[in-house]
């Protein structure tokens, strides 16, 4: 009796272990349903008429690849280019292509196609194929060229005379209804390995409310949520994937400070803002208080820029000035969170004796702006944020952290912007069947690694 029980126990243990491993092991197949608020009418990565956002970048990443990619540490990693070399002047770069890569029309990836794709979006560069490599020559030193090439706008695409665009991404287009719906199927011969899901159906132009309803009704597997909702979702035990605080929320003045008094008033305004409360309440604890443009995790020096409220100092500055005209602070009417931020800032400013009137009008003295960091490369991110906020481009004399700090300090001293928060640039809620859905720090997803399991 004792001897006959052991084999059964072993069998049961093996079966349970197999079942457990089957539940956690990736599975192929299934259709991933995604809902997003963006509604692009073009899938061309070089189409600059389409607004840039992390959602669009993620969408394009399903179809296209870049020569290199940035990892979460801000390092360059191979992609379509398996290796590269640069001359000492940082003006000539040569990228060696990965072998056996095909476009979605099954045509092989060649250097001339890559050169043609990059030329369309970078007219300032001299790009030419050389054997199995592509040479990029710049007029000025470009130490960050690989990071530049990792941007989605430099994704490699093959454009046919018929207007069809093919990429080398993990999925290919099965159905395309511009602005409404995009259906993708898995690229069987993808160089990075076949995606686990067979297809993806992406509903475009869905509002946050519709996305949440779709998720609750089981009609969507992946939906976008605002960073302020991440806490609520987490409290509801939902699956939430969030990027690092890679989006800057800041006040941006329409004009530069025209006088020292104006600059001091702006300083008083910056000191009066209770960023912690905004973060804790309006953003439900998501993100970080921003004293600088680049987040601490990216620059490493952001703590140097103060972001705490100092109402006494603000009152003192305000008291030193004879009078202050009322400001209007604008917000995007389609962004309720921006409105709340504007209203809260107005209340904070009132405490310091400053008058701010929130308005949805675009002709405001300042506005609450969002700027997502498009890359984990700090210099490129700073330039991108400056461009996105309408600030003057930072002058950088070098590529070191000190140079970056100086450039950012110069930007902040113009008093044209007041950083408020760094919040996650992308937050997705997923249904329980979605497995391995993770985001990079910059919000980039890796859908090719996602697989569909069963609900617990």
């Amino acid at each position, binding site marked *: 009796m004792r001897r006959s029980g052991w084999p059964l126990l072993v069998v049961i243990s093996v079966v349970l272990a197999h079942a457990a491993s089957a539940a956690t092991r990736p599975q192929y197949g299934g259709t991933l349903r995604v809902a997003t608020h963006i509604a692009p009418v073009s899938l061309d990565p070089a189409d600059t008429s389409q607004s840039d956002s992390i959602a669009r970048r993620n969408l394009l990443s399903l179809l296209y690849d870049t020569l290199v990619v940035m990892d979460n540490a801000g390092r360059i990693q191979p992609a379509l280019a398996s290796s590269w070399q640069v001359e000492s002047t940082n003006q000539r770069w040569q990228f060696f292509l990965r072998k056996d890569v095909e476009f979605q029309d099954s045509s092989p990836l060649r250097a001339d196609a890559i050169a043609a794709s990059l030329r369309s979006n970078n007219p300032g560069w001299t790009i030419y194929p050389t054997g199995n490599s592509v040479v990029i020559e710049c007029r000025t030193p470009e130490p960050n060229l690989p990071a530049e090439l990792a941007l989605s706008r430099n994704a490699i695409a093959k454009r046919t005379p018929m207007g069809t665009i093919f990429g080398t991404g993990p999925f290919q287009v099965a159905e395309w209804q511009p602005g409404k719906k995009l259906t993708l199927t898995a690229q069987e011969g993808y160089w990075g390995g076949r995606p686990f899901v067979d297809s993806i159906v992406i509903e475009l132009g869905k509002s946050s409310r519709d996305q949440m309803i779709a998720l609750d009704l089981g009609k969507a597997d992946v939906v976008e949520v605002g960073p302020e909702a991440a806490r609520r979702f987490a409290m509801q035990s939902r699956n939430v994937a969030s990027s690092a605080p890679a989006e800057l929320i800041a006040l941006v003045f329409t004009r530069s400070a025209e006088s020292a008094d104006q600059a001091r008033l702006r300083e008083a305004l910056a000191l009066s803002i209770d960023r912690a409360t905004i973060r804790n309440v*309006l953003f439900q604890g998501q993100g970080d208080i921003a004293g600088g443009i680049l987040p601490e995790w990216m620059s490493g020096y952001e703590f140097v820029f103060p972001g705490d409220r100092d109402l006494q100092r603000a009152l003192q500055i305000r008291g030193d000035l004879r009078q202050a005209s009322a400001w209007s602070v604008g917000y995007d009417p389609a962004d309720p969170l921006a409105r709340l931020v504007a209203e809260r800032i107005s209340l904070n400013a009132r405490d310091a004796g400053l008058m701010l009137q929130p308005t949805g009008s675009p002709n405001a003295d300042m506005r609450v702006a969002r700027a997502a960091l498009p890359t984990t490369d700090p210099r490129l991110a700073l330039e991108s944020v400056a461009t996105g906020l309408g600030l003057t481009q930072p002058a950088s004399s070098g590529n070191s952290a000190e140079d970056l700090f100086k450039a950012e300090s110069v930007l902040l001293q113009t008093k044209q912007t007041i950083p408020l928060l760094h919040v996650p640039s992308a937050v997705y809620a997923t249904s329980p069947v979605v497995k391995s859905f993770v985001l990079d720090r910059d919000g980039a997803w890796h859908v090719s690694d996602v697989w569909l399991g069963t609900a617990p």
Partner: protein
Amino acid sequence: MTFRRKLLAVVALTVSISVATIAWVVSDVARRAFDRAGEERTAALVAQFQREFHRRGEDVVRRVEAIAASDDTTRMALAVGRGSPDYGAYFNLAKSLGESQQLDFVELVDGQGTIISSAQWPAKFGYKENSFAGGPPALAKDAFLKREELPDGVALGLCALRVLSLGDKPLYVIGGRKLDRDFLATLDLPAGMRAVLYENLGPGFSPQLLIDASGNISQPDKLAPIVQQVQQSGNEASVTVHWSSNPRDDEIFQAIPLQGGNSQLLGILLVGSSRRDYVEVNQRIRSAALLIGGAGILLSILLSAWAATRVIRPVENLAAAAKEVGAGNLRVEVPVNSADELGQLAEAFNQMTRELLEQKERLVQTERVAAWRELARRLAHELKNPLFPLQLTVENLIRAHRQSPEQFDDVLQESSSTLLAEIANLKKIISRFSEFSAMPQPHFQRVQINEVVAGTERLFQAQLRSSEKTNITCQLDLDPRADFMAADPELLHRAITNLVLNAIDAMPQGGTLTIRTREEKNRVHVEISDTGTGLQPEECERLFTPYYTNKQQGTGLGLAIVQSIVTDHGGSINVRSAPGRGTTFHIELPRNLDKLTTPGQQDSRHVKESTVAAKSTSTDRG
């Protein structure tokens, strides 16, 4: 203006004024009644609105109580009771509670007045609620008005306050509805009524603060006076607003001050009631009154005309009959068509004419008999005088033939003379009567009356100088304007002569005889005056009666002949006399130029002038 027209005018005017007065009174009474009805309707509508407003307040109270009783609020109250709450955890709570209860304003406030969650201004968490500036407000059972600060300004709200005390620290729930155009649009108001809200956010009148359910109203300045009146007095007021020249667009506005908890005037509710229905009904009544009044006046005029004709016809018949009677026709009779006063009058008139006719006939008969008697008496008297000498003469002849035949011849001679003389006298008497009965009709010809008078005077001047009556003076007073006329010169001369003889006879002691002529109103007047003894009034009345005389030797036909001549010429004669003051006969004659037979007689001034002066007329002095 005839009596008919006068009567028609009076009756029509009277009826018209009466109808117009009644129409005006009816219209005025109707207008006042409608004014009262309109005021009562407005008051009822305002009361209905206030009930609706109160009902909305009760609804707000219920919803706020529901929020206070909700699980989420209870959990928050517990968290507040434990200490400082997590604002982030309750950030959207007020908004979700407000949405669930359909309230525009929801604020959850702790005991210190700190906003934990706000629906209308979510970013205001952590700040103090204004109404808690002086400590927690008194709990009101009913809804109250509250001025709510919003990110984009200030708004009025119909709010309620409830407190939830689950621990040591209370949690206040303030909820309400925004008083805006949407609130006004949801009010269940009767047709023709609207609500306008003035948000009293500052002193004076600002048109932008005046809204109704459709938004900002047009011509807001029209409501400025009543708004300012309420702002100053704080009491209800009423005004009629004329939006245009068309009175149908008028509205009566009742201004109701909306006060907050501290009696501060937060808003003014203007309840407008259209006067369109009232004006239309009033105009219809006025039109109907005018139509009825006009028709009544027209009908009254027609009826007045008919009634006047009906009433006046007997009067006209009476007038015509009276005129006939006045002309001497007593054989007229008025038809009697009714038994009323006019009928009785007509009957009396007919009776009168009948009696007058009978009296006239009796008078004529009596006069005829009297005339015959007088004639017989005169004849007997006249004839008896000569007959008596005849009888004596014949008896004297008979006696002389029997007693003294020798003297008979002498007596016969003498008696024959006497008999012949008396017979001649009888013939003369008979001749006079014959002459009176055979008065000729005048033969009109062109006559100068002054010449006729002057001729007569000359005739009698010679007679007066040759007789014993030399103490009578004759004077002529002739009007040269009394010149030509148409008359029979011989008859005229005879009439004047008779009157002159009468005047001479009336002055046995002498006196003055005056003959005057004058022209007046195209008629010729002749007066013969004496300064004699004069006549008694009763004598004057009978003076022209034939055979009447107050003389011993008169026949009583002289003045009758004069009157006959004057009458035949279309004139008249009268006498003025008094005892001792002489007598004046006044003859008035028409010119009678139309009686001339040929145009030559009318126009020619060279007609044969009658010469009467040399013609001696034997005239009896009657």
